[in-house]
């Protein structure tokens, strides 16, 4: 029949606005979903509900004052943010922390990473419906937080590292406790895995869900375990070592299929590796100072007495320098990255020599990972969207800055 045109019937779209308050969006992520039945036809993430202007705020602070701001980025593993920022400033200023400080930083970073991965596993499993894993993970996470509290006095916003070293030395007693905990921790990981790794329902819910091939993963800028799940061996700790990572022995677990299940395995293996690193740090912990000699002073100088070092800018009281507005820092810019718990955490700092950063740009993995959600969720079920948000391990404090 000529001239007869079948009318194209567009199936009506079911629009679901998931978030910003929704139990599974890990904070205030909002997903604008168009559903066809239970399948996702289109997915558009919206961010910015937690924007606090950390980058702009950093421009008004002196270099040491920015450290507590970085706590508020990825508040689940804020130790790594602190270290990331400190490493960047140290590279900019040419400060080399002493070995003990390096090992201490590495240790607390890995403890933070473990606690982050525990929280990730807990919520990811809860999103998929496995309730018990959640509480098992929190049990161990609590212990890690106790240790971190013992080390630096805070549970969430540590500000433990400082430019040129760490703030407080660690007692031998605490190290022994951590060592004992790590010994038992491997068994605990087996326990979580016993609940999930070979669970038929878990496999059914995660295998082949949110698949991203290596090329796409790179194109979307995924880093960290989300990238390694696709089979790409890239880890800042291995490839651009900082602190004591070049002196400890660890492996980088890599997945194969790039699906949710492989990313799960990657992170679980990473916990084991992190535990190994912590153990090595405790064994190899060198004696000595915890602060570089040319580190920036944090204290205000006592009144009437200026603690200016005759040789240079760096040992003087920083804030009194500022008052005198002397050009005291090298001008220049640096990009320095560390392996955050979620992925590559980069700090790009421009210094104009004024003592305050001219610009701090933070490359946060979560923000970049959120951009991959539409790709991963394409054609998946609504229930998978929850798994996908979980598997990318995003935290909105970091994404919105």
């Amino acid at each position, binding site marked *: 029949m000529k001239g007869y045109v079948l009318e194209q019937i567009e199936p009506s779209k079911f629009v679901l606005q998931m978030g910003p308050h929704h139990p599974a969006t890990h904070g205030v992520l909002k997903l604008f979903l168009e559903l066809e039945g239970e399948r996702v036809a289109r997915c558009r993430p919206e961010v910015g509900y937690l924007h606090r202007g950390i980058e702009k705020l950093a421009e008004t602070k002196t270099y040491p004052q920015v450290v507590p701001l970085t706590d508020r980025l990825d508040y689940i593993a804020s130790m790594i943010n602190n270290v990331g920022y400190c490493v960047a400033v140290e590279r900019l200023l040419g400060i080399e922390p002493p070995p003990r400080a390096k090992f201490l930083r590495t240790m607390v970073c890995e403890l933070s990473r473990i606690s982050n991965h525990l929280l990730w596993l807990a919520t990811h499993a809860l999103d998929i419906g496995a309730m*018990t894993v959640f509480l098992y993970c929190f049990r161990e996470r609590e212990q890690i937080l106790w240790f971190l509290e013992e080390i630096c006095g805070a549970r969430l916003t540590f500000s433990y590292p400082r430019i040129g070293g760490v703030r407080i030395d660690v007692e031998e007693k605490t190290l022994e406790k951590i060592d004992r905990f790590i010994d038992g921790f491997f068994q605990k990981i087996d326990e979580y895995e016993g609940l999930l790794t070979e669970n038929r329902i878990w496999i059914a*819910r995660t295998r082949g869900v949110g698949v991203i091939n290596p090329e796409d993963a790179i194109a979307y800028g995924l880093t960290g375990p989300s990238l390694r799940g696709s089979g790409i061996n890239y880890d800042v700790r291995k490839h651009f070592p900082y602190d004591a990572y070049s002196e400890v022995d660890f492996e980088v677990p890599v997945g194969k299929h790039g699906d949710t299940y492989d990313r799960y395995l990657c992170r679980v293996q990473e916990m084991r590796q992190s535990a190994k690193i912590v153990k090595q740090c405790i064994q190899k912990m060198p004696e000595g100072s915890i602060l570089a000699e040319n580190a920036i002073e944090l204290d205000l100088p006592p009144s009437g007495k200026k603690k200016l070092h005759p040789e240079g800018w760096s040992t003087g009281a920083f804030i009194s320098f500022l008052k005198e507005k002397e050009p005291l820092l090298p001008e220049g810019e640096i990009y320095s990255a560390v392996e955050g718990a979620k992925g590559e955490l980069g700090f790009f700092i421009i210094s104009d020599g004024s003592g305050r950063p001219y610009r701090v740009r933070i490359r946060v993995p979560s923000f970049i990972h959120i951009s991959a959600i539409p790709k991963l969720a394409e054609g998946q*079920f609504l229930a998978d969207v929850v798994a996908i948000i979980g598997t990318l391990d995003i935290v909105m404090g970091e994404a919105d800055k």
Partner: protein
Amino acid sequence: MDRTLDFYQFGFLVLKTVFIFAITLVHVAFTTYAERKIIGRAQARFGPKEVGPHGILQPLADFLKIFGKEDIIPQSAYQPVFKIAPIIVFAFTAVNLTVIPFEQGFILADLNVGVLFILASASLAVYGIILAGWSSNSRYSFLGGLRSAAQVLSYEIALTLSLASVVLMAGSLKLSDIVVAQHNSFFGFYAIPQIIGFVVFVIAAFAETNRTPFDLPEAETELVAGYLTEYSAFRYALFFLGEYTAMYIMASLAALCYLGGWTVPKYVMAILPFLKWIPGWVWFLLKVYLFIFLYIWVRATFPRYRFDQLLSLGWKVLIPLGFVNLFITILFKKLFA
């Protein structure tokens, strides 16, 4: 039977009804307590602890709290249906209690089609969920209602098929007859000869009552609370009561149709004669508790299925298994009877 009821008979019937409902409600209340305690135990924590010794009065506190809450009806909800939906769910679930025999002779209405009655009203209760999802006029609720419809549709068949084999074996649709037939059978209960049917029944019962791993209609992390999202106060409590009563109905059905109800197998009785001092309703309740424990245990252990996986499990595994079981039962019945 004399159809006219005299005053005393009627009074006794009312008393019995009130008694059974009261018992069930107390059970439901303390199941929530048991659930929280058992899951707490499984998850290395305490569970309720503050209200009363060991938190035993927690259900009472919950009850008082939930009935003191404001009843919120969304503006865009279709009010008549929104209001009646929880009542439908609870009524059609609770009505099943009438045909459950707790012991020889202790039953409200000894229907000769007891099994059918339960299956029928269990399906009717789903209307309440679908209507609740639709009338809430919320997207999460709507998806929850749709899921429920598909889920119950597919698992009802498996449930019916597995029960059909039991009915064939016992030769009666009357629940008390089924128990008696089991008592007279070789094993003393049907869970062994009907092992395939039993497994199918248990899985389908989980799906039928929207429990983990099939709690998709109210999947917390995806649909917030599914069809329950817009409900609050006592309407929410009615759904809750409905769900837990349904759990008890399914557990009773399993105890009656597969575990011999209030009877103990004859060979056990022959070995341990002192067991006959324990009354039948205790046995029945123990068997029911066993199932309730299973429900809770599974909830503590398993993740949730996805919607399509749930349906494919129902249609590709459970229903064929149910048919196989039915066929085997028919074959044996023909050969040996």
